[in-house]
């Protein structure tokens, strides 16, 4: 099915099941510990040996020799594979560095060997006996000093220009020109990257934890040099991803190599202290923002530049993207530059680009409003645009940012915010409120599904879509239930298997809308097949209450499957509606903080997000996506920072004690409001993404609240008390 004209009325609009805040269908399994994650498949395969990874102890250079003799002689060891034993491996399309290094080392903790033994304890002990000698090469690890050597990336439109930014900025009566910095961030999902690999002759089965099954199967095949059809990936439960599991990582490749060498199935999880330097992270950015306005606050010129670094062949953090679309202004420029750094691979993490970009832009906007003596909400509302500012003939499909801001202001009590910073006190706490816009584009991706009406009347959905905590199981079941007219408990959803039709996968907040649209397409085909079997006109038949009805006829759905299951498969693909219309999601974040007047300790007291993101397929799981993203944004604002050891070239705080993420005590009750909206340009579901929208702007709202509380403006994240202390208001 192709979606190339705006959606009209369709069976989803009944909203009998879709749009309801139903409990997750996988909830009872997850809350009782029965949902099996990748490392836990005792049910799937017996006689599994244990793999343990060995990582490079230098950031760049060569292994001059590896001595495996002691490790090989250790009790229980079945096999050891290094690059020498592995033979020729290719780099996956989605990887920047090799997943098994050697002799060349590209980054610290790049895997250099896998040790396979009978038990976990034996594999771990033997891994400690692998002795590698290295020759270090000089590396570049500091973004600040590499900034001047940064170059223009080849792809992705690194520069944009509209009007005459330089002239307009120079002439603008009110101006801001500031620099901001965001550090490297880690996904730090709770489930480590893990895989079980089993070979049956030349066919490989991988139980793994991966967000994008089809990409993964392709890259496993490419890396190992085996035909794609010989690889099967299974990933029904995923303990968090946030972009960190978009791509095949070392666990999968090492498990496969170890299993081949040992002649046994092998399970391998990346040890937590290994993950931060071995896998990917969100790259640090340096950003410069210039805004020029007239005296009334209308933006005349807006410019945003960003510098980030990555390994050779890697890509930039696209932190300027939102600035091309978020506010009006006739003279505009953006610029993205990329430095070569020999740190671990930078890559996508929840809202890549917008998350760090808005942490800078929305502070700059707050600063500009202050310069103008305007309320920061009024300033944003004044500079709203309903069209793509670089292409005014191209409207937004829906854009209700102003309503998000106004609704939030009303609910949050924004009018009580002190206009002058550092004025509101609550006992020992200086209290402040901050606001920021949330913005993230809505992407649509081709997505396929297979649906089957079983003889029992149960509808089974199969698609390689993944549920990384997003609620895919539930919204897919809701979609099939709505389309086929059955209650939710009569839908069986099977996900995350490369033998199923290829879906959109989980990334870029495209998963919910795209994967359910694929299920919609397959269900339309199944409705035709079912109606045909029952001798009814598929165009007119109504599917409801477990029956198919037309005029006076009403037949039970399962009658169509009397002689055997009825199967249909289809996909949804997209025409040019995303070109003719800009599809984006919008929100407004409101944060109240308390800053200890003596110690500058920062506590978040209240958080509210108001979102406009098309039809909300399940308000309960969608709300969870938003509050979870707000938590991650709070972490980015207040504590998260991978600290670069610039001498050795690695992230020094590489575990969950050193890389601090928010805990219960850091997060208050959170409120989320979804504006009632449908977007017929997005898909027949009329839905858009929310999973990344929720993190966009949160960090800036926190930083702006801290400024409002203290009068101290910090432009280098995270905002920690040491950056406030010296400038804190003098205590009366």
């Amino acid at each position: 099915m192709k979606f190339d004209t705006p959606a009209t009325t369709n069976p989803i609009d009944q909203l009998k099941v879709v749009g309801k805040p139903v409990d997750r269908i996988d909830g009872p399994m997850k809350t009782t510990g029965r949902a099996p994650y990748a490392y836990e498949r005792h049910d799937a395969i017996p006689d599994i040996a244990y793999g343990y990874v060995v990582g490079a102890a230098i950031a760049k250079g060569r292994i001059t020799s590896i001595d495996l003799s002691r490790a090989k002689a250790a009790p229980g060891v079945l096999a050891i594979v290094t690059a020498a034993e592995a033979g020729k491996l290719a780099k996956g399309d989605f990887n920047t560095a090799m997943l098994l290094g050697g002799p060349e080392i590209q980054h610290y903790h790049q895997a250099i060997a896998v040790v396979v033994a009978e038990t976990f304890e034996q594999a771990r002990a033997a891994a400690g006996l692998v002795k590698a000698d290295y020759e270090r090469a000089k590396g570049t690890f500091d973004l600040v000093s590499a900034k001047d050597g940064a170059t223009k990336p080849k792809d992705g439109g690194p520069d944009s220009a509209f009007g005459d930014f330089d002239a307009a900025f120079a002439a603008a009566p009110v101006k801001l020109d500031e620099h901001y910095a965001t550090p490297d961030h880690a996904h730090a999902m709770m489930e480590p990257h893990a895989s079980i690999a089993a070979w049956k002759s030349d066919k490989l089965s991988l139980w793994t934890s991966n967000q994008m099954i089809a990409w993964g199967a392709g890259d496993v095949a490419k890396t190992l040099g085996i035909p794609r059809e010989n690889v099967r990936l299974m990933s029904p439960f995923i303990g968090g991803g946030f972009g960190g599991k978009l791509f095949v990582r070392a666990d999968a490749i090492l498990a496969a190599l170890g299993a081949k060498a040992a002649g046994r199935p092998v399970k391998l999880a990346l040890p937590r202290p290994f993950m931060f330097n071995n896998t990917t992270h969100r790259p640090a950015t340096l950003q410069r923002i210039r805004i020029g306005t007239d005296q009334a606050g209308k933006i005349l010129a807006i410019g945003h530049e960003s510098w980030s670094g990555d390994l050779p062949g890697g890509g930039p953090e696209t932190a300027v993207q939102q600035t091309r679309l978020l506010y009006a202004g006739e003279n505009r420029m953006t610029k993205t530059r990329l430095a070569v750094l020999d740190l671990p691979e930078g890559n996508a993490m929840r809202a890549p680009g917008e998350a760090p970009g808005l942490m800078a832009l929305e502070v700059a906007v707050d600063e500009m409003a202050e310069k103008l003596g305007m309320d920061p909400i009024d300033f944003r509302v004044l500079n709203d645009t309903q069209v793509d500012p670089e292409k005014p003939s191209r409207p937004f499909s829906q854009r209700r940012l102003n309503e998000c801001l106004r609704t939030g202001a009303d609910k949050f009590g924004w009018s009580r915010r002190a206009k002058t910073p550092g004025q509101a006190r609550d006992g020992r706490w200086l209290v402040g409120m901050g606001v920021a816009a949330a913005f993230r584009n809505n992407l649509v991706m081709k997505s396929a599904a297979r649906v089957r009406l079983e003889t029992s009347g149960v509808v089974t959905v199969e698609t390689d879509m993944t549920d990384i905590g997003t609620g895919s199981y539930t919204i897919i079941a809701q979609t099939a239930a709505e389309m086929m007219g059955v209650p939710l408990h009569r839908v069986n959803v099977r996900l995350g298997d490369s033998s199923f039709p290829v879906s959109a996968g989980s990334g870029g907040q495209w998963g919910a809308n795209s994967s359910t649209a694929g299920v919609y397409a397959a269900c339309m085909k199944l409705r035709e097949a079912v109606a045909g079997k029952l001798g009814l006109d598929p165009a007119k038949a109504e599917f409801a209450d477990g029956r198919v009805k037309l005029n006076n006829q009403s037949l039970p759905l399962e009658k169509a499957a009397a002689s055997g299951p009825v199967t249909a498969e289809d996909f949804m693909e997209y025409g040019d509606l995303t070109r003719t219309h800009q599809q984006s999601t919008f929100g407004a974040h409101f944060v109240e903080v308390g800053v200890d007047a003596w110690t500058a300790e920062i506590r978040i007291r209240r958080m509210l997000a108001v979102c406009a993101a098309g039809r909300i397929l399940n308000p309960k799981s969608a709300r969870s996506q938003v509050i979870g993203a707000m938590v991650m944004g709070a972490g980015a604002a207040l504590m998260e920072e991978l600290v670069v050891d610039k001498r050795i070239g690695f992230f020094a705080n590489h575990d969950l004690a050193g890389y601090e993420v928010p805990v219960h005590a850091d997060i208050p009750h959170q409120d989320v409001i979804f504006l009632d909206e449908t977007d017929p340009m997005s898909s027949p579901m009329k839905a858009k993404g929310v999973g990344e929208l929720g993190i966009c702007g949160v960090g800036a709202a926190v930083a702006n609240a801290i400024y409002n509380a203290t009068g101290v403006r910090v432009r280098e994240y995270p905002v920690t008390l040491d950056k406030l202390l010296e400038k804190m208001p003098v205590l009366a």
Partner: protein
Amino acid sequence: MAILDDLQLSRREVMATGAAVGVAAAPGMASAAPAEQPTLMKVSFTVNGQRQTLELDTRTTLLDALREHLKLTGSKKGCDHGQCGACTVIVDGRRINSCLSLAVMHEGDEVTTIEGLGGPEKLHPLQAAFVKHDGYQCGYCTPGQICSAKAVLEEIRAGVPSHVTADLTAKVEFSQAELRERMSGNICRCGAYSNIVEAVAEVAGAKA
């Protein structure tokens, strides 16, 4: 090279291990000589009311005894270093990080895991409240959160004070602040905290 001199490391002595911190990993960190066989030891304890006797490598953590030997994979391994709380189980009435405890230390103990609280057909009230309030997303920290919450409620009932208890001599009362403080060893990277607090508060009979 300058950086190596700074750290007074000999290039030839650097040993690479998966868990090495920097290049400071030094020779001699591996305790087992190559030929040394693992020490096995018998241990008996009760898990979810069932007596279990295992012969284990003494290096086996309680967490791995549960997950790998008894195939009770509800207790999760998030960090294996006592930093995340995903492995929380209840031993003799108290919650512990099972990854920080060797299995052979638990002779005669009574262990309760998430599987012992309830199954999909018969949910424990906390499990049902987590489902109702969507107190989880990916589900990986969830068993640890629920085991921890169960023990937290009992700690408050037993009058055990916490860092945020204002009056150490008065009876400890359930509050959001108490709950958030006591649950802070259980990380949820999906960020379901607000919902988890509501779920646990409902079971505690308090309004979140």
